[in-house]
């Protein structure tokens, strides 16, 4: 067992997956976790910050645009640059990380301009990362999405760098792992569903791993992501 990992779930006005994230890591995976109010500056003590899904500031203007000016974000770079500190941004959390420049690229409206909530399949592109080491390379995970702006966009150069440096964590695929246009529900560049920063201590992903934690909810595949991180931190 050993010592528990300390997660902090950052709560913005309009976050709504905060409680689900807390439940996933604290109640299902038995780790330490607590909420962090967006005006708090006290984030040093956590091993991993979770930026949960939802509609911070209503997603008004652009999703994530206003949240990134919160107090809690003032020390985020410092946090991210420290050793053995991790950040996971899920859905709106991912959007905030993009707006804050912690990850490259931008989210556009889904190609069909509609909110999409459903189970999707994503393939693990790189399994040698803090967030995916419990997965097989090429493993297909069944995890739900729920977003209106999840159409990941970046310029060619950024994309090439992401590919060349293996910073793409997940891509939308069909049930057999084929990367098809049909599986690309929101129109993302290169079917991208999740990416990491250069240092590989920040992960942003549109699918909600915290919603795929128990069989009754339809899948347990989300656990692999949290467990990978817990595994990684414990080993290092």
């Amino acid at each position, binding site marked *: 067992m050993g010592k528990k990992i300390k997660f902090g779930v950052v709560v913005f*006005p*309009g976050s*709504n*997956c905060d*409680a*689900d994230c807390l*439940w*996933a890591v604290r*109640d299902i995976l038995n780790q330490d976790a607590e909420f962090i109010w967006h005006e708090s500056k006290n984030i040093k003590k956590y091993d991993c910050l979770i930026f949960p*899904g*939802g*509609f911070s*500031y*209503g*997603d*008004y203007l652009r999703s994530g645009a206003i949240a990134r000016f919160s107090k809690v974000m003032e020390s985020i770079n410092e946090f991210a640059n420290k050793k053995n500190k991790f950040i996971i941004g899920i859905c709106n959390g991912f959007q905030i990380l993009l707006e804050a420049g912690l990850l490259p690229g931008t989210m556009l409206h889904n190609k069909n301009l*509609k*909110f*999409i*909530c*459903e*189970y999707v399949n994503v393939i693990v592109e790189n399994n040698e990362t803090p967030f995916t080491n419990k997965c097989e390379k090429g493993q297909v995970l*069944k995890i*739900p999405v*729920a977003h*209106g702006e999840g159409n990941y966009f970046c310029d060619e150069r950024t994309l090439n760098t992401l590919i060349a440096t293996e910073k793409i964590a997940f891509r939308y695929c069909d*049930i057999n792992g084929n990367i098809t246009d049909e599986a690309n529900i929101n129109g993302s560049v290169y079917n991208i569903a999740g990416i990491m920063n250069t240092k590989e201590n920040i992960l942003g992903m549109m699918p*909600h791993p*915290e*919603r795929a*934690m128990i069989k*009754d*909810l*339809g899948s347990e595949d989300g656990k692999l992501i949290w467990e990978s991180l817990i595994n990684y931190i414990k080993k290092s």
Partner: protein
Amino acid sequence: MQNYNVEITDEILKEHNLKKEEYENILKILGRKPNIVELGVFSAMWSEHCSYKHSKPVLKKFPTKGKYVLQGPGENAGIIDTGFDIGVAFKIESHNHPSSVEPFQGAATGVGGILRDIFTMGARPVAILDSLRFGNLNTFKTQHLLKGVVSGIAFYGNCVGVPTVAGETFFEDAYQDNCLVNAMTIGIVNKKKIKKGIAKGPGNPVMYIGALTGRDGIHGASFASAELTEENQKRRSSVQVADPFMEKLLLEATLELIDKNLIIGIQDMGAAGLTSSSSEMAYRAGTGVEIDIDKVPKRELNMNAYEVLLSESQERMLLVCKKGNEKKVEKILKKWGLHAVKIGRVIKEQQFRIYEKGKIVADIPVRALTDSNYKYFPLKKQKGVKPAYLKDINIKIDDIKIPEDLESVLKKLISSPNIACKSNIWRQYDHMVQTNTFTLPGSDSAVINIKDKDLMIATSVDGNGRYVYLDPFLGGMAAVVEAARNVSMSGAQPVAFTNCLNFGNPEDPEIFYQFKKAVEGMAYAAKKLNTPVISGNVSFYNESPENAIYPTPVVGMVGYIKGKNKRYAKQYFKNEGDIIVLLGEIKEEIGASEYLKEIHNLIKGPVPAIDLKREINLQKTCVEGIKKEIIISAHDISKGGLAIALVECCISGSLHGNKAIGAYIELQSDIRVDALLFGETQSRAIVTVKRENLLKLKRIASKNKIIATEIGKTGGNRLIINIDWASKKYSKKLNIDIDEIKKLWMSGVNEYV
């Protein structure tokens, strides 16, 4: 300051939807002429929407008590007990008129309103359901309304973070001019922290929280109580814009205030805004209120008392706290980026008294506005007259030709709008947030887990307006019965329900007859099923000069699944090789069916009969079978009959990434083959069991006097139905590819959403 003492002319009365007699009563109540502010207040509070003046006597027929009922009708929402330390609060509400005019904002604000009704009780909303009715799907108008309404509901519910877990969508010409948008919310409340809308304690401050007051929807209440005419359509100021982000902040702030025990009473400002919330809160507490218009936070310049009192700006709440707690209240609101403003106080005198610039501009006895027992209250003693159309409404079954090609009938039905898959609707709703949705949309009812308790909630909204149109009493019964049946298909015991009564103009005796009979039918079924009514809403005047909608009562049922194991079932086939069992009987009933409408172009009765004893027994059989882990899947037979139910069992699982599973069915029966396949005989279900459990299921069924017939086996990728008659020449065989039929099912509605 404006002069409010204007001459009250007939013209002004008409504009305020006040009848001459009603005005005379106002004169008697006040002992003087009202000013225009007071007239506006009366007009709003005596509108059908706020006063229930036509419906109240009829609504008394509903059973409202029972061992589970903690809070019955009369509050912002009803609450039922769970046996644990929590209660379940729920209510349904209509937003038909606003949605007809402006589908996106209308539907969105509808969701907002019903969410506030729930969290104002101290309950955290855990689920939303929606019940929608539109006209002909082939018209531009319907497509426009459908898209707007669905995206509006999605916009609001998704942002606030409450999953929209189930609903129903029905298309019929009668709704062409008046779409129906009913939304229901379910919340969970700690029983010790239930809050009510009461203004107790003279001297206590009345505080305002939430969005600023604008000129939105002034006259909204009387607007919702008038038929939709050309001219009304133009009164677009009645449209309010939704701000779900504000709602989310209000929700969290309100629950925190209640959790910290800082407030005495709270209510949202819904129809007739500040006027109704303050007067109703005073009425419930036996007090009065004083409000200073100058203190009300306003969005626009130069708003006068009339406008402020009648504004229906969204996302606002009114609360009463203990004197001295104002600072603490303000502090919590500030945390959420909001303000609390003291705008008045509770007074002992039972008056609704409004000040503007230091002068009294309205002074009305509270009871006159809120108490239906008050002698001058405009309660209507309407009488119903049986509508002429009911005289000749039933077919003779022998006049209906049995189609030759049953496969194409099945294909046509599966892609018809009322049966086709609605996944592009609920895919736009976040139905998974809060990580409790164990049964996602696409089954008879949604199942919502309650974490840390041996409890789950199953819920469904239902109401077949066509049945009610063809037979108001039976149709009313059917709405209750089907909602309960849907819930029991999950393995849940139906406990209580909320209802939204959507009808035409109640002043029309024929419409009133429909209303009264439908309520009687619902009440009768509710008593027998032991499922009391704990909340509801009435929406009248759903008509245009051309026609009225079908009388459409909508039932939102809530049931419990209890026990450590939390056993529940979904509607679709789970494994290959399971035994398929039909529970219930086969009768020659095709009246009122989708089959009769889609294939024979007839909207005629008779509506299928309901034997409530048998219905209860069917539900018991399913609940017991699921609880004992004998029944693997359960789906009731409703729209489209046995054949459609079978197709749905085969394919609906594939919506959530499971495999579609075919079936081989043998039916032995000598009744008309169309009635056999497509008749909508009530009190039936298709369940699956393992071969070794078949006998156990039969025992449970026979104990409950329910016929259980083994009709086939799951497996393969085709649905094959063999119909075996004693006389071979009538025997029939349907053989359909599952993928092909799924495509048809998926296309009927989805491409329009």
